[in-house]
């Protein structure tokens, strides 16, 4: 799921050159919205196995906050990037309290959804089918993003903008529209990621500032702005965490930052720099 957050981060960075600290907040918002949507839908007679529909709808619905936030960020377009970074930090602070105001300080969990699809045994260990579904969903979204960026007109425009915004603008591309759509897509990736993960966990308000650190790690390892890098980076971080926990739990958090710094030092552009954005 880290992949989706990171992918959103990548997309927005790649195109708009905005590094969004608030992507973790979108993730948290998506998680809370997912719980609310599913609880509401189940309460209105939605059969349990269809809960993912409500879940995704909840996550997607929240993407409506994309355009206004993009508008907000655009007010300082053209100023130093550092200011945009700070503005997204302001969003982090505000959204954390918005969550507490709407959903309260207690963790919110989704009941009766996680094991609706049962469990399977893979290579000797038991895995809930839902976990496999999430992995598959991650893959599908990755693939979809790839196709969107390489095969569609919108994708070509986005890539052209990422490449060189002046030329794209000169060629008659409506920059504002592209930015708005790209940013909203980035938000949606985050909120859907948050919604998808929630059946297996619980939504807590501090997940926003926790996940951002992991998402950064993924982005740095994969290379800023690279979609393929986000996917690989997420895998590397996941494997690294699991490996550290299994062998030497003390270094779990440390290991990730060491790798991040190592990558930054040795291959500053990331392991997958140059791959298609």
């Amino acid at each position: 799921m880290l992949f989706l957050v990171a992918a959103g981060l990548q997309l927005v960075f790649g195109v708009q050159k905005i590094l969004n600290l608030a992507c973790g907040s979108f993730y948290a918002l998506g998680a809370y919205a997912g719980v609310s949507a599913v609880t509401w839908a189940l309460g209105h007679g939605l059969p349990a196995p269809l809960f993912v529909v409500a879940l995704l709808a909840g996550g997607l619905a929240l993407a409506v906050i994309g355009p206004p936030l993009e508008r907000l960020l655009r007010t300082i377009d053209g100023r130093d990037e550092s200011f945009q970074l700070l503005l997204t930090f302001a969003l982090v602070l505000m959204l954390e309290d918005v969550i507490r105001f709407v959903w309260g300080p207690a963790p919110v969990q989704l009941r009766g959804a996680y094991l609706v699809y049962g469990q399977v045994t893979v290579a000797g260990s038991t895995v809930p089918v839902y976990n496999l579904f999430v992995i598959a969903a991650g893959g599908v979204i990755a693939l979809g993003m790839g196709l969107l960026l390489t095969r569609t007109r919108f994708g070509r425009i986005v890539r052209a903008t990422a490449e060189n915004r002046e030329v794209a603008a000169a060629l008659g591309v409506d920059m504002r529209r592209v930015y708005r759509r790209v940013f909203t897509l980035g938000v949606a990736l985050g909120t859907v990621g948050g919604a998808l993960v929630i059946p297996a966990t619980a939504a807590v308000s501090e997940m926003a500032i926790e996940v951002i650190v992991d998402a950064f790690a993924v982005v740095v390892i994969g290379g800023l702005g690279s979609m393929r890098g986000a996917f690989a980076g997420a895998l590397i971080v996941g494997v690294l965490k699991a490996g550290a926990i299994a062998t030497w739990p003390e270094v779990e958090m440390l290991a990730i930052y060491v790798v991040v710094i190592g990558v930054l030092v040795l291959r500053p552009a990331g392991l997958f720099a140059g791959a298609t954005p």
Partner: protein
Amino acid sequence: MRTTRRQFFTLTGGALAAASLRLDVAPALAQAAPVKLGILAAKAGVLAPVGESGLRGVQWAAERINAAGGILGRKLELVIEEESSPKDTVERFRKLALHDKVDAVSGAISTGVGLALGPVAEEMKTIWLSWDATTQKGVEETMPKPKYSFRSTDNECEAVMASILTGRHWKGKFKTVAGINPDYSYGRDNWAAFLAIMKKYGMDVQVVSELWPKLGATDFTAHVAALAQAKPDLIFSCHWAGDTPIFMKQAHGAGLTKSTKFVLTTGGGVHESLKKEFTPEGAILGYNTFYFEHARASALAREFVRWHQEKFKEWPNYESDHGYFTIVAYKTAVERAARAAGSKWPSQDAIIQALEGVEAESLSGPRRYREDHIMEATFFQGITTHRNKAYDFVTIDPVETMTTRQIQKPSGVGLYDWINGWKV
């Protein structure tokens, strides 16, 4: 800006001087002036639900006391501030003491904050009644003989009780154990206490995995995978926050709940979120010092549970009782000291003296402060069951109780010296 700041100082300084003057010339009004109690309750982050719970207990206590005429005719007034990082909370404490001039402070949960506040309470000469956060380091190393701080029960009580129950129920029935505990002093102390007691009981356990997820973690998949690989007979965990149900959910998803024994010393902190769908029957589950559905609960406790359920649509947990007790203990101590002082409002030193050894009726029965300022209370643990009709979460049956006289190290003894000195 510069001049405004100076003006600000002069102005506020003047206003404050005027305010203190007013208090000084009006001693006759002091009787009717409210008693100010500062409250430090966490509002954000992983501690927030617990802070909220403690605050509810405090507010309920204050409402009842005020409805009955207050303390010696003075109403209680709560000044609520947020417990956050140690640095900010120390500043809040100073504000309560210096600016609001409160009579006492109640609150604080986090161990780091507890460690920081202990010395500050002494420096500020302000009574501090802590809700929680009584770590060995805080008590032994840093505050051996506090005057103004009154601590909650030791953090390790629950591990001690759960370990005794483990021995009672499962001795000889398990060999390999794994620990998954939040990565801070509380988790480490509890795990160490558990292992020490296993050894003391002659249970030759083998540790196959020791995991330390960060407090408040939301993803345990890697930990659960490590546990599944280690295949322990028993898993010990002292998680108490919102991470508890997440861990259980993911452990259940990976099939760990089928055959492994679970000892959840403090899961009762979030008991309503331990849904039947993923929390197994037959696990040892601790509720700290308050069990919402105790068959022998007092009328007081029943009233509180009813009020809590009606107002918040939730069943209360132990932190409410910690908060409640700090307030009634303060009231009892003031009244006790007043009797000695001829019905006048007693001095702070007299209140402190009265607090030492004070006994008051808490929601879970009588509680008291020991002479060394540590709380004494009753703990509730038991074996989880799904056989309750009204709830979608697990409860315990039978409910076992132990008092701190059985499971808390006595004054002046090291925890492990005490455990090793047991006769078993």
